[in-house]
């Protein structure tokens, strides 16, 4: 606090206006706070459904009661007042709203014209100072299509060109004019990092560092050394323990003292655990290196994203409590994706305390995360792995995803008190033929396949078919 005051009057005013969350460190104050408001809605009783709760349970012929934007009760033959809207779900399945931990909707929106290319700040290898939310275009038509696929929340991340790409933001998938009105209240930011080919190709190709994988790691380490010094200079309490890289000298970025540095704010927030670290990383050996890096600087990895070789170190990921956010079948489009297998998700899911996640990284894939999971279930069956039940597989895109994003107290399961983020499917969701019939976010029916006006339409789409 002392240093903060020294930083000057402008900054002090800014920090007052920002209304930081209770107890949040100065590194994660939010001057762009969420303005999301749940929409009032009548209570809803979804009845006689096959319910996958997201807690690993399946209830047949069960009911789900939503009231005041929350899940009130899940069970059999629930009683509800006359005020409830009843949704007959006989033959249909009900799941928590799906969560995609890896999306570029809004930052790489449709149409993908040059003016919309806002996902990768490819101007320096460490751009922890940029926030993906400042690139989000809420009119991306992809949001509505993802909603039709049952996606109620997502993390929008910067791209993977940089060693540290910036902050990701967790959004509720609601149609709005501003991204702040989508911003998931209370969700921590993510910090995007990238291993391997992309950073070294982008910067090596310009003749600047990093040009190699060893250059990548040197780049991460330099950034975290600066951030560690920054923490030491900007907190009243010293870091937990003295590390070999600590010194009293000027840090290499010249950002010492009270001067606020947006880049180091993000890295410091990551070290302190207030910002979740999400790492784009394909190869098993590189994931192991990143785990060592995390230990070296005292941060925790929330999830490895893409991880096509995660199956090679599934036990270690589970032991370290690191999620694997994975595709069902992408492989081979570059060298570090050459060892992809279709059983990757199932094998990452197999150890005790595992955290397998189905992610998209694609405006098409986000529309059918359920089908990606279906592929993984089938691949496991083909490989004679123990059968993966639907109640298990649904956790890959609900509870586990919520856990990786730090929103598991609010959403990701159908439990009393959780946000009423709910999908009613036309049948078993793990199929090519599965369609979301209705999607609720905080109890409000944002999508209804059965009515013509049941789907939001982006401003961009208006008038395009008038001839």
């Amino acid at each position, binding site marked *: 606090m002392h240093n903060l005051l020294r930083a000057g009057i402008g900054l002090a005013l800014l920090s007052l206006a920002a209304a930081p969350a209770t107890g949040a460190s100065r590194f994660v104050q939010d001057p762009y706070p969420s303005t999301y408001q749940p929409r009032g809605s009548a209570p809803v009783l979804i009845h006689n459904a096959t319910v996958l709760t997201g807690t690993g349970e399946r209830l047949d012929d069960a009911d789900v009661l939503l009231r005041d934007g929350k899940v009130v009760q899940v069970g059999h033959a629930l009683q509800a007042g006359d005020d409830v809207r009843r949704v007959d779900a006989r033959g249909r399945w009900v799941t928590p709203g799906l969560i995609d931990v890896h999306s570029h909707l809004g930052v790489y929106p*449709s*149409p*993908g*014209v040059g003016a919309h290319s806002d996902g990768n700040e490819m101007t320096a290898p460490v751009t922890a100072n940029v926030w993906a939310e400042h690139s989000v275009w809420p009119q991306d*038509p*992809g949001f509505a*299509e993802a909603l039709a696929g049952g996606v109620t929340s997502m993390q929008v991340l910067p791209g993977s060109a940089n060693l540290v790409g910036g902050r990701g933001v967790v959004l509720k998938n609601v149609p709005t004019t501003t991204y702040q009105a989508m911003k998931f209240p209370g969700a921590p930011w993510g910090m995007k990092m990238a291993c391997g*080919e992309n950073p070294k190709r982008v910067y090596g190709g310009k003749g600047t560092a990093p040009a190699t994988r060893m250059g990548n790691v040197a780049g991460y380490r330099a950034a975290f050394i600066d951030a560690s010094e920054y923490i030491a200079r900007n907190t009243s309490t010293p870091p937990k323990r003295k590390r070999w890289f600590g010194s009293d000298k000027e840090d290499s970025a010249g950002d010492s003292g009270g001067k606020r540095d947006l880049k180091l704010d993000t890295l410091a927030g990551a070290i302190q655990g207030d910002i979740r670290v999400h790492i784009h990383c394909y190869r098993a050996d590189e994931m192991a290196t990143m785990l060592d890096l995390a230990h070296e600087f005292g941060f925790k990895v929330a999830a490895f994203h893409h991880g096509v070789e995660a*199956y*090679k170190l599934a036990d270690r990921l589970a032991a370290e409590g690191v999620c694997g956010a994975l595709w069902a*079948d*992408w*492989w*081979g*489009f*570059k*060298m570090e994706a*050459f*060892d*992809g*297998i*279709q*059983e990757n998700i199932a*094998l990452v899911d197999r150890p005790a305390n595992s955290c397998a996640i189905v992610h998209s990284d*694609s*405006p*098409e894939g986000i*529309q*059918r995360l359920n*089908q990606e999971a*279906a*592929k993984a*279930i*089938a*691949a496991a*069956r*083909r*490989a004679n*792995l123990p059968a993966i039940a639907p109640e298990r597989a649904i956790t890959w895109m609900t509870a586990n995803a919520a856990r990786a994003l730090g929103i598991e107290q609010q959403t990701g399961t159908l439990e009393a008190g959780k946000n009423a983020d709910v999908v009613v499917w036309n049948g078993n969701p*793990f*199929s*090519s*033929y*599965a*369609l979301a019939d209705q999607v609720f976010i905080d109890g409000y029916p944002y999508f209804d396949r059965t009515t013509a006006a049941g789907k939001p339409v982006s401003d*961009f*789409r208006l008038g*395009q*078919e008038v001839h």
Partner: protein
Amino acid sequence: MARDPVPSKRSRFWPGVAAMTALACIAMPASAQDLLIRNATVHTASARGSLENADVLVRGGLIQAVGAALPVPAGVPVVEAGGRPLTPALFGGITEIGIEEVSGEQSTVDSTLQIGQQPLRPEFDVTLAYNPASVLVPVARVEGIGFTALGAHTGGGFVAGQGGVVRLDGSADPIGPRALYLRLGSAAAELTGQSRAAQWMLLQQMVDEARGRVGVDSPHALLTPAGRRTLAGYLAGKGRIIVEVDRASDIRQLLRWAAREKVKIAIAGGAEAWQLAAELARADVPVFVDSLANLPTTFDQIGATLENAARLHAAGVNVSFAQSGDASHNARKVRQLAGNAVAHGLPWADGLAGLTRVPAQAMGVGDRIGSIEPGKLADLVLWEGDPLDVAHYAEQVWLGGRSLPMRSRQTELRDRYLAPADDQPRAYSR
């Protein structure tokens, strides 16, 4: 050649067997290309439709009979299908299987011509680069894919070059006629002077050259002599011109051009093709649809909809499938395209036809593959469940009646890491 399923070629290696084949079919001894698949739900992708509790008899790599309770010739092995679905081996889409290994590594990619001086080279033929030993071949095959249309990609010019059909049985050569690939619309504007209007200008000039209306020594010639000969062949109806195009207005121009020049075309992508469904049906133009494309990814795809395939089919257009993503490594995803088209209104049988009969006919190989009918090559897949649903998988693939190992580099990796860790490093297991 040992993998070649065609009996006449096999005869060079087994003259005794060939002689007996010629003498009498009834007494034909069982070979590796003989089998009877019993009690399957046979989706013939032909006029016979789907047959329950049916048998398929394969002799010498060809389908000999399809029907109920077929007698088992002596020595012919029997596969009990137990009612499971049997389909023709599937079409993998328009891909670069065998002409690229790792998309991001230029040294492994042969699908694109980059010649600065004279970039319009219709004579460029990617089938000459096809590598049947590519790891992509078994990766696709174990998923029930038996053939693919090799596609040339636009590099320096909007005329990408030629491709053709390869069967994924390890054979080295394409079958059937070549196809010529073009790209029209905004995606090709950079290659055509930054205007789609120039695409018609350049195309017309190439046609004029191929038809001999421009002297070979003209300083403005776009084509080489070989390019003229190649294009002249397509203008004479020898092979189909496959045009990657999305916007309805471009498709309208294309239909006019094709009618005027009397060329056989097909459309790939066709995001807005549904808006011209009746015209496409009238002109008998098949469309290879990306049935997952519903976003206005470009301004050429404003009208993209998940109902594209269903609407085209309802108007009488022959619909097949092609992906816009990583079509080669993930060729297996083509099943998901078909299944989702069905979820959005395409009849199931037409979803299957779009992965079998329709592309085989569109590519000029429908007389050999694409349906389960006597005389066709026995390119077959027995499924564990619905072949259009990603929740199910291929159990066994036969190409030319030969049972293919259900193994690939991916299953080898899987099995290595599935095994419990033991004293030896995994690198010693294989």
